[in-house]
């Protein structure tokens, strides 16, 4: 792997190491070159058990959702104590830092581009219900992120989805039922299409 000039071979100790390093640099004609190691072996292996507590992301297919469950009714009291101080008693938010969560125009066809004042809420804008769980788990409440249990997080998620008319009262949300929730705005989302047929030359 480490090709050294022939004359360094046989020189012992620290001198050899220093000479080897210097010659390797000198012998290099381009950026990494074919003389560089394929691997630097500088990282440290990590076990699945070490990864698990950091592995907090949740995907639309439900991957990452923990065991547990909650209902809108359970979520109402958790919302009142943990969320309402910033987002308001009815999820109306406090601009600009604390977004309105619920209570915007309903449905999957709300006209957002014409007026920025039209509230973009969970029910009319968020494409995946799993995002709601994932975000609460990650970041909320602002003053004590990570303090809600999985059951409490499911319950607050259920409460907000119920306020938007997406899950019925009494519904129990868990990993399976949350993944199955269809959000009204889902089909509106498209991956960046600015390049498209114009080759990125025109504003789209």
């Amino acid at each position: 792997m480490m090709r050294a000039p022939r004359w360094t071979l046989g020189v012992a100790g620290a001198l050899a190491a220093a000479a080897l390093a210097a010659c390797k640099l000198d012998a290099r004609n381009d950026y990494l070159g074919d003389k560089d190691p394929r691997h630097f072996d500088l990282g440290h292996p990590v076990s699945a058990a070490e990864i698990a507590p950091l592995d907090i992301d949740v995907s639309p297919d439900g991957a990452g959702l923990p065991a547990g469950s909650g209902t809108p009714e359970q979520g109402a009291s958790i919302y009142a104590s943990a969320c309402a101080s910033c987002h308001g008693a009815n999820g109306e938010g406090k601009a600009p830092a604390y977004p309105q969560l619920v209570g915007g125009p309903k449905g999957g066809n709300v006209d957002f581009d014409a007026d920025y004042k039209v509230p973009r809420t969970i029910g009319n804008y968020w494409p995946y219900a799993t995002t709601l769980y994932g975000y609460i788990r990650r970041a909320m409440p602002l003053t004590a992120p990570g303090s809600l249990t999985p059951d409490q997080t499911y319950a607050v998620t259920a409460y907000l989805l119920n306020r938007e008319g997406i899950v019925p009262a009494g519904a129990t949300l868990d990993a399976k039922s949350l993944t199955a929730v269809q959000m009204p705005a889902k089909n509106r989302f498209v991956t960046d299409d600015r390049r498209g047929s114009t080759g990125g030359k025109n504003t789209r």
Partner: protein
Amino acid sequence: MDHKQITRRSLIAGAAAAAGGVLLDNLPAAAQQGTAAAPAAAAAPAAAPPVAPDDPTKIPGTPTTAVGERSPFFTPKRAPVGEITGTSLSPIQDFAGTLTPSDLHFTRIHAGVPLIDPTKHRLLIHGLVDRPLEFTVDDLKRFPATTRVHFVECSGNGRAAYRTPKPDMTPQQVDGMFSTSEWTGVALSTLLHETGVKAEAKWFLAEGGDACKLARSIPIAKAHDDALVVWAQNGEPIRPEQGFPLRLLLPGYEGNSNVKWLRRIKLGTAPFMTRWETSKYTDPLPDGKIRQFSFEMDAKSIITSPAYPNKLSGPGWWPVSGLAWSGRGRISRVDVSTDGGKSWSNAELITPLASKAPVRFQFLWNWTGNESLLMSRAVDDQGYTQPSMAQLKAARGPGTDYHFNSVRGWRVARDGSVTFEANT
């Protein structure tokens, strides 16, 4: 209350001493008494420029210091301050060249600036890799380093000027979520070479170590292209507000995806659909679609001088100076108009051109004293021309949320006063 008084008084005394012994007697009485009615701003008189000697060559100057400070005659500031979930805008009108002084880089934070011990910080790379690995900051510094100049622009930059323009907006208020640094780090592709990448990996999640654990999904192609994991900014460790000790640097991509305080990268088959790529940082369009993963920042420019609140003292030569950049490549040309877009001239590009880095442009203007409307328009090496406000509004709608790159103007009145003009 007594405790508060002592604290405030000693703070003021300390500030006064630091400013070179400004007389406490000059402070407002309320500040000296430390009453609740005295906000921190009451100490502002202490920041007034000192009186310089008539002839500084006749007395010795001040001694060496451990850390240098700006001249007391130059006091640029970010604004606003005190936000936990918000933005502090960079005073882009106060700079020359293209680099932003690190302590004035714009700040966008979602859950405050974390205090991170670099010896305890780790970067984990896992998911669809052959070997999940964890790196210390010191480990990363042993890889081959890359140093490049790149801008970071919040994709919401220019929002207020687009939606609610006012004549008395400064460049800082118009476009202050834009900063440029020389970044040093290791190519993400080098790290992924260490872990190995499974063939089915198409996206990676980048996650920060702040209190909201901000996370974005990025196409794996960007990792193989030019993504960096950086630890240095302008020759020193990254500032805490910019991600100390590690940040993801995605040249040309919207600021939010350049995840600060980077602690985890997870490779997957599909986007993870975090809040910051669904509910936010997406673009509702007139055709009813909502565009997401619109990472590249399209070509844009802004004249930083003259601008509000400048006032030209009279007719004559005035340099029209500004910045132009593109997230897709190099700037190839900047046009300047002094007549509101009726005619355009080539500006001089006075700094080196680099991909996904800004250039400083300059146009020497001989002002006759008539009312004028100054505009700049950037063209990049992909053939893209910065649109007018009318073109951008037609494409995106007035309610769109991000990527505000329209041509903006500065109106110069006959008395030399300069005001902002958004409609182009």
